[in-house]
């Protein structure tokens, strides 16, 4: 098992390198350049050229590549091309906000989604099922930013229950900042709930028809024992896969939510970096994302193995 984990982590190194290289090349294909973004519409070509030189953008690509890579290996993400602030510092500041938001949304999605899915599967074709399905489908159909804005106006402006904007002060007042977390977390969490509910329901229906479940029922095992011990456990494979997918994509999907709620975060930093062509920030953040995603994928696969011994065996055989 430990060998398997180490093996997978070793595989992650080339992935991160590939991500870095891909991003390094892609950002340089993008039209636009950071000097223009930094100086805005007032800039003259002379000022732009001076800035490009200072940013090191006039060096040959291989030189830039080795320089960025070398710094990154030493754990130094470099400085933002735009405001000159060390990227390490900025990331350290915004990362907790994104992680909290993602964790909260995944928690909401899982804790609400799985029971709801199981429940509607058991009550198949009753009005509960229909109502649950239509609501979960509707939840799935609302664009996140649209939901975010509706939530702001209802709960922040009309009712005044939660703050409308910002992320709170995580360092000074972590408890107070939870209030800022509620609306964004529910924006993302509700959409994930809808998705998890749907998949849980459909896989549960599948599993409930499987012969071994019927056999177990025929053997007279208690209904809940069958449900939790057999059915849900085998239904978990695709669900875990979906939760893994969602966790990875929520980190990215948090972008628009962070944007609408003006909440600091990695996604917002990344969009800023894309729009301002801040190559050094862009590369660093992408690699950080990649790292998280690799870890999440690894966890997903490990859970797979845990849930389905057949897969574990075939994996350790490799």
């Amino acid at each position, binding site marked *: 098992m430990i060998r398997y984990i180490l093996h997978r982590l070793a595989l992650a190194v080339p992935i991160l390198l590939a991500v870095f290289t891909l991003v390094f090349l892609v950002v340089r294909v993008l039209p636009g350049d950071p000097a223009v973004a930094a100086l805005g519409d007032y800039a003259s070509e002379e000022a732009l050229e001076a800035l490009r030189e200072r940013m090191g953008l006039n060096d040959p690509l291989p030189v830039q590549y080795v320089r960025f890579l070398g710094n990154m290996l030493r754990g130094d993400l470099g400085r933002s091309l735009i405001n000159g602030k060390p990227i390490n510092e900025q990331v350290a500041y915004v990362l907790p906000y994104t992680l909290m938001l993602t964790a909260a949304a995944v928690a909401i999605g899982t804790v609400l989604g799985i029971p709801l899915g199981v429940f509607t599967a058991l009550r198949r074709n009753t009005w509960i099922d229909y109502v649950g399905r239509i609501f979960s489908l509707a939840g*799935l159909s609302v*664009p996140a930013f649209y939901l975010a804005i509706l939530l702001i106006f209802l709960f922040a402006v009309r009712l005044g229950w939660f703050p409308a904007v910002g992320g709170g002060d995580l360092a000074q007042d972590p408890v107070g900042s939870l209030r800022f977390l509620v609306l964004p977390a529910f924006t993302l969490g509700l959409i994930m709930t809808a998705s998890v509910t749907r998949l849980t329901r*459909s896989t549960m229906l599948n599993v409930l028809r499987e012969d071994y479940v019927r056999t177990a029922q025929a053997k007279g095992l208690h209904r809940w024992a069958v449900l939790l011990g057999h059915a849900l456990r085998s239904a978990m494979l695709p669900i875990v896969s979906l939760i893994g997918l969602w966790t990875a994509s929520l980190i990215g*999907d948090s972008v628009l939510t962070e944007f609408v709620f003006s909440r600091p975060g990695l996604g917002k930093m990344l969009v800023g970096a894309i729009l301002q062509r801040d190559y050094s920030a862009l590369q660093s953040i992408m690699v950080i994302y990649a790292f998280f995603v690799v870890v999440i994928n690894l966890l997903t696969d490990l859970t797979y193995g845990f849930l389905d011994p057949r897969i574990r065996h075939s994996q350790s055989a490799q």
Partner: protein
Amino acid sequence: MESTLPAAPAAPELRTQRQRAWHTFKRNRTALVGLAMVVLVALVAIFSDTVLIAPLTDAEPTPLLAPYDPTIQDPRNRLLPPSWEHPMGLDTYGRDIFSRILYGARVSLMVGILSVALGGILGVILGLVAGYSGGAAEQWIMRSVDVLMAFPSLLMGLMVLAVLGSGLTKMIIAIGIMLAPGFVRVVHGATLGAKQNDYILAARAIGAGHPRILFRHLLPNILGEVVVLASIWVASAIRVEASLSFIGLGVSPPTPAWGTMIREGVQYLTTAPWIALFPGLAILFTVLAFNLLGDGLRDVLDPKSYQ
């Protein structure tokens, strides 16, 4: 699972299988509602103007279902609230929102369906191959998927669009590329599970060729799940299109697209809420339609659901 019951019945039974499928489908009320909604959206998309008939008479298409030309601007009457004349009001350029919603179905449908088709075909082929063959092919495919999945999907779409430039085709390609790795992963996972099944082992034992096993035995077995996912992805694709448009990189103007309309309207959510509200409802309706239809199809396509 009895080994005597093949997952995909042989040819002579196909006709009865289809009949049986239609029979099951007809009885599935949610599926019928979904189908009706999708057909409605499709009809609206096709007949919002005379684009089908106009070429016959060599004329420019004129609005048919839509009361107005969706690109005609009337800035002096902009932001007019809904009225009998303009049931959904006028937007920031003074264009009729109702007409734009009807025409906008085209972009949403095209992006939603074509990008999922693109991503789905790529994803199913690669996922099946990876899951079934194992070994080096699996390693290469899944590690490439890992690299691509390491990009947050929306941002990947954003970057692909930034490189390609904006526009309808580019939007479809961007979202298709964005969805493909997700398909691969899920199909791969499902294949891993399915290939352990007795009937696959049996098929192997009797010496069935790989393509036959892949497409006659494995594919039908996971198709149900793929269809359920595809219906989620059509929904996602439509929402992603809206999100990318919300960021400002949607289809080129003046083509009406719901996502772009919401972007425009979000600024005016308190001043002129109808601008963002109606396209939001249109998206909701369309996505709901696909999800309902997908649910119904799942019951029908899943071979195990025949009682």
